[in-house]
């Protein structure tokens, strides 16, 4: 029997949350996965190290290249060398709040980065071979024009991050229409996991509460508690990314759970996982959460202790108050639906952060410094 040729995928941003889950997923499917990572003085591959060190039995494994989305030459050279069947463009300055601080870098990496990859596909004559996935975002909907948001909802970006992603979205559509590249935008609503960066609000909550439960941290400071998001699990979402590139024709898809929760609800849910019931007091900037009751791992926390406060420094110059996705098209055409529920997502994240916090507590008890990195 003739062995089918191994498929080759290239993932930009392979060291991020989605890059790691996608690399693992594709290796499991038998792909040879190439990833692009930025050069850094410190190790930055912890999310994919398990794939790198332990090449998969089926033959699939991971190859890493140094590269930066702001460097056209490197992007083009890697694509020329790898000749991928599929490119997943996940690399980005992906933090909305940071984009207000670094708007130009965000535009360069997120908007021009996508264009550089598309141009490389075109210039290298790979338009008929290489399929392209662009990681879009629900932040495009920003100040929402309708609820829920589907592929037909007009965009209203509310941050330099969203404006840059808007460019990436439309330039992807344009290269599909102009040059016939099999290019898809996934408009992904928030998707989280234990691999989420520590500066994103969900991870900040699960990590902060786990550390508070064990007495490693006093209080968790948050911004807009009323922001409502549609949160799914990254593992479910990378499957949708892959599915988009397996269709007979390229199209853009909203990927979402269709369920919405506020940041406050996320906090409550995470606290309960730790045996903690919170009571919310005060209003506006003075709002805070106190311990109403505690048991299990957080049993040592005293009733009435304030564990969550507002820091207006985390408010954004322009907030996105509510996002809720309608993934009907993905359900119908890709047969995709999320497997992990909101409760399971929060539970998994808390469990993982509790494990890390317990390790830190153990180290401290034995006289070692435990790392306590800050934003």
């Amino acid at each position, binding site marked *: 029997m003739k062995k089918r040729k191994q498929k080759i995928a290239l993932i930009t941003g392979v060291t991020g949350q989605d890059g790691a889950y996608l690399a693992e997923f594709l290796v499991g499917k038998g792909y040879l996965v190439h990833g692009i990572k930025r050069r850094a003085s410190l190790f930055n591959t912890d999310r994919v190290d398990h794939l790198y060190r332990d090449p998969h039995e089926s033959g699939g494994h991971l190859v890493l290249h140094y590269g930066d989305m702001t460097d056209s030459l490197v992007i083009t050279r890697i694509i020329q060398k790898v000749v991928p069947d599929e490119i997943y463009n996940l690399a980005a300055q992906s933090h909305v709040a940071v984009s207000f601080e670094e708007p130009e870098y965000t535009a360069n990496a997120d*908007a021009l980065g996508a264009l550089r990859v598309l141009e490389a596909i075109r210039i290298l004559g790979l338009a008929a071979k290489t399929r392209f996935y662009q990681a879009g975002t629900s932040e495009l909907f920003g100040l929402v024009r309708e609820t829920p948001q589907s592929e037909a909802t007009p965009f209203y970006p509310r941050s330099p991050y969203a404006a840059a992603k808007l460019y990436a979205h439309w330039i992807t559509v344009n290269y599909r229409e102009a040059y016939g590249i099999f290019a898809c935008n996934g408009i992904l609503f928030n998707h989280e996991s234990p691999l989420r960066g520590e500066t994103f609000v969900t991870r900040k909550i699960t990590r902060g509460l786990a550390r508070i439960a064990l007495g490693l941290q006093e209080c968790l400071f948050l911004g807009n508690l009323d922001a409502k998001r549609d949160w799914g699990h990254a593992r479910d979402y990378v499957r949708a990314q892959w599915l988009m590139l397996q269709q007979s024709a390229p199209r853009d898809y909203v990927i979402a759970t269709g369920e919405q929760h506020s940041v406050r609800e996320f906090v409550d849910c995470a606290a309960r996982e730790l045996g903690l019931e919170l009571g919310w007091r005060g209003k506006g900037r003075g709002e805070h959460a106190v311990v109403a009751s505690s048991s299990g791992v957080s049993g040592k926390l005293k009733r009435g202790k304030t564990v969550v406060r507002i820091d207006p420094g985390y408010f954004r*110059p322009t907030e996105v108050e509510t996002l809720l996705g309608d993934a009907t098209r993905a359900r119908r055409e890709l047969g995709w639906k999320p497997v992990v529920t909101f409760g399971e997502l929060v539970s998994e994240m808390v469990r993982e952060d509790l494990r890390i916090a317990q390790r830190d507590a153990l180290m401290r008890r034995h006289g070692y410094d435990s790392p306590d990195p800050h934003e």
Partner: protein
Amino acid sequence: MRRALIVGVSGQDGAYLSQLLLQKGYWVAGTSRDARSNSWTNLRRLGVHGRVHTLSLDTGDPEGVARVLEETHPDEIYNLAGQSSVGLSFERPLETFASISLGMFHVLEAIRRLGLRARVFNACSSECFGDTGENAADEGSPFRPHSPYAVAKAAAYWAAANYRDAYGLWVCSAILFNHESPLRSERFVTSKIVGAACRIARGSGERLRLGTLTIVRDWGWAPEYVDAMWRLLQQELPRDYVVASGSSSTLEDFVREIFAALDLDWRAHVEVDPALGRPSEPRCVRGDARRIARDLGWSARCRLPELARRLVRAARESA
């Protein structure tokens, strides 16, 4: 004396806007990438060269943008700079993005950082709407850009809106539909048609080859459009407007009127060559400018066929 800074002054709109602002008594500064070696053809043609204080600026350089703002202390800033050809944007997508989108970011960031109170005008484009079909696009219509040029303009538009919302900057965009004049370069199809038709009228015997005749556009007269730009900055609060003639025509209509203005029958001189078409192009772009008519009292007076007569007259005078 009110002070205006026109970023990108050497193009068609920059020249007409300089003329208008000088007439209104403004002190006018204008930038171009290389002010010293620029031949300033458009400013000379309008007789305003020498009255505009010219400076070199590449809007890709954030420090340069900040320096020019500090040097000129403008009350009003008009950002017209950028790679402005849709066709060329397919060949130079990166340069197009850098000059249009990053350029706008640099202007906005410089104002924010320096704490300036200047009002800012951003020149957005009807190309952002993409194909509007039969329904004319107004300020509420969603964008669906069809070229690297249009995608870059859409990003700049949202950057302007975001800095207004986020930091209270006084900035607004006009979504300008096609506006023509004798100062348009021959890279634009309208000027190409006028140029060829005039040569044919003089007996060149050439044939005019066009990629398509069926696209629908809304064409206006550029000097009227710079007046709309100025009016946008005189509003009490910054608000975005569609600026269009409100009447749309096919490219065939445009060709017919240009040749008719020369007493020629276009059908004897024009051929369609699809190879000249763009990789992707909106078929139909119609504009609805009722809001600016109502709020700012602006409406286009010059449309086809008057527009064709003016373009032909100017081309003949300069030939």
